[in-house]
């Protein structure tokens, strides 16, 4: 379990992480979502003690990371797959981790096998690795100590579709066996498919967090109609906010039943009406981050959000 309480980190006058609090629970994959530069990586570096927070605390399994006697056996960390000595082979990089943790030597070959790096690839220097291979090596390094907690920063970067599916299965399985996974991404679909809980961050502040199912439910309905303007007016009169989608669609901040009743009362035929599940998170994400980018954070967070 990972617990972050009121963590703030400033650089001069710039606040990279602003009063961030959230938890990642055992048995669940927590998706840490935000655009580039939102403060995801800084928050993760603070969790593992590479960056000192200006204020606030972060604990892993109830202890400060730096107080863990042998952190590799408790927390698997992958912050940047490219941050490796380019002159070392993949096998040597795993060997260094295996030595630090005091693990038996055969763990190295086991992990190479787990992440599907062939013996030939493992004997090549990391300089010659593709980003996808570096990610696999990084995941192997994170898992070699058989930790209870995984912290992965953008692990899907550079993986091919088959690799992404493989990693998704690996992390799902890991969480189902009781592990805690904190996974960051700016790739909405990747997070949406795998995460149980979501923490959305924009400009250093948490803009929404909660169970994925709750956040999606609050994301409204997609409605397509023959006369968008009339429906839009009717929605506003009923106190429902909306945003345009495509040529003839609307994303209404209400459930499908309510939207259907409003359109029926307005006498406008609908072409399509459905819960916004698929596109919902993306809409929410863009909306929330756009709000913080305009620096006008509204107080009415989406229903279910525990900000």
């Amino acid at each position: 379990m990972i617990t972050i309480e009121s963590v703030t980190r400033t650089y001069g006058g710039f606040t990279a992480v602003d009063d961030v609090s959230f938890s990642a629970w055992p048995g669940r994959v927590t998706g840490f979502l935000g655009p580039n530069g939102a403060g995801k990586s800084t928050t993760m570096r603070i969790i593992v003690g590479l960056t000192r927070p200006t204020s606030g605390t972060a604990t892993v399994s109830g202890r400060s990371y730096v107080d863990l006697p042998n952190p590799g056996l408790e927390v698997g960390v992958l912050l940047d797959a490219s941050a490796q000595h380019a002159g070392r082979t993949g096998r040597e990089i795993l060997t260094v981790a295996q030595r630090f943790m005091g693990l038996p030597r055969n763990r190295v070959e086991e992990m190479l096998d787990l992440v599907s790096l062939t013996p030939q690839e493992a004997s090549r220097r990391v300089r010659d690795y593709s980003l996808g291979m570096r990610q696999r090596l990084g995941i192997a390094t994170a898992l070699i100590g058989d930790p209870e907690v995984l912290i992965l920063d953008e692990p899907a970067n550079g993986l091919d579709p088959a690799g992404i599916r493989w990693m998704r299965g690996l992390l799902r399985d890991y969480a189902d066996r009781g592990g805690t996974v904190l996974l960051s991404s700016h790739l909405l679909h990747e997070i949406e498919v795998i995460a149980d809980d979501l923490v959305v961050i924009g400009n250093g502040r948490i803009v929404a967090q909660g169970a994925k199912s709750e956040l999606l439910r609050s994301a409204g309905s997609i409605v397509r109609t023959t006369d968008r303007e009339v429906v839009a007016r009717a929605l506003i009169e009923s106190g429902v906010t909306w945003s345009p989608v495509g040529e003839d669609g609307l994303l209404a901040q209400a459930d499908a039943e309510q939207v259907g009743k409003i359109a029926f009362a307005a006498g406008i035929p609908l072409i399509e009406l459905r819960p916004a599940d698929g596109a919902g998170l993306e809409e929410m994400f863009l909306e929330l981050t756009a709000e913080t980018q305009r620096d006008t954070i509204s107080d009415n967070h989406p229903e279910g959000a525990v900000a």
Partner: protein
Amino acid sequence: MTTTDIASAPLVRTSSGTPTTHRGIPLSRITTTELHKMFDTRSGFWLLAGIGILALLATAAVILFAPDNELTYTSFATAIGTPMTVILPIIAILSVTGEWSQRSGLTSFTLVPHRGRVFAAKAISCVGVAVVTIPLAFAIGALGNVVGTAIAGVDPVWDLTVTNLLTIVLANVLGLLVGFMLGVLIRSSAGAIVAYFVYSFLLPGLALLLATSQGWFRDLQPWVDFHYAQSALFDGALTAQQWTHLGVTAAIWLVIPLTLGLGLVMRAEVK
């Protein structure tokens, strides 16, 4: 959890929630791992191999080119020792700066969050390398002296005492620690290596120039010029005053900047 448990454990943990207590990482294990890291890269391997190759080349050169009356143990030891005074500090520099220049510190300082222990381990393994390789160089030099004089048909001259050998080891360890200090302070491979060359090749010349032209500096030099104080170590036993010079200059040029650099490194953000 014992190591056998880890070996037989499934690849992904089956349960969690119960806080497990692991034993801490002993400094000895960090040190052997850091030692391993010094030579498992291409650059590290060739630097170590370079010491051996240059020692053999230097020995061969002395045998081929030195006149018979200069076939002494000092000639061999000097020829072999000179490249080592360059390579050993570079090994120390790269051991430190690689964590930043190659960004491997992201992993190292995550696996061992107490950075002081990582740097202690690096310092121990660097000094360890010096203490092992320098006597090895002396041995190659001795072999060269025996072979060279036999080829020339003259008697071998053993003109270095045990004290000489020990002070030369000390001089090399100090040079290596200067490299280590520059690595900690500058945290960039290129920057630290350039700084080392400025320190060991450019500054002595400037100091010499200054001492010959300025009387006040001539008197001050032994107290402020670390390189000058170290060079006495190559010339035999030191007097009490020379030891004092060495201690004072080492404090100024080694201990203070190293302390400063370590203080910064403990706090610095690793990206």
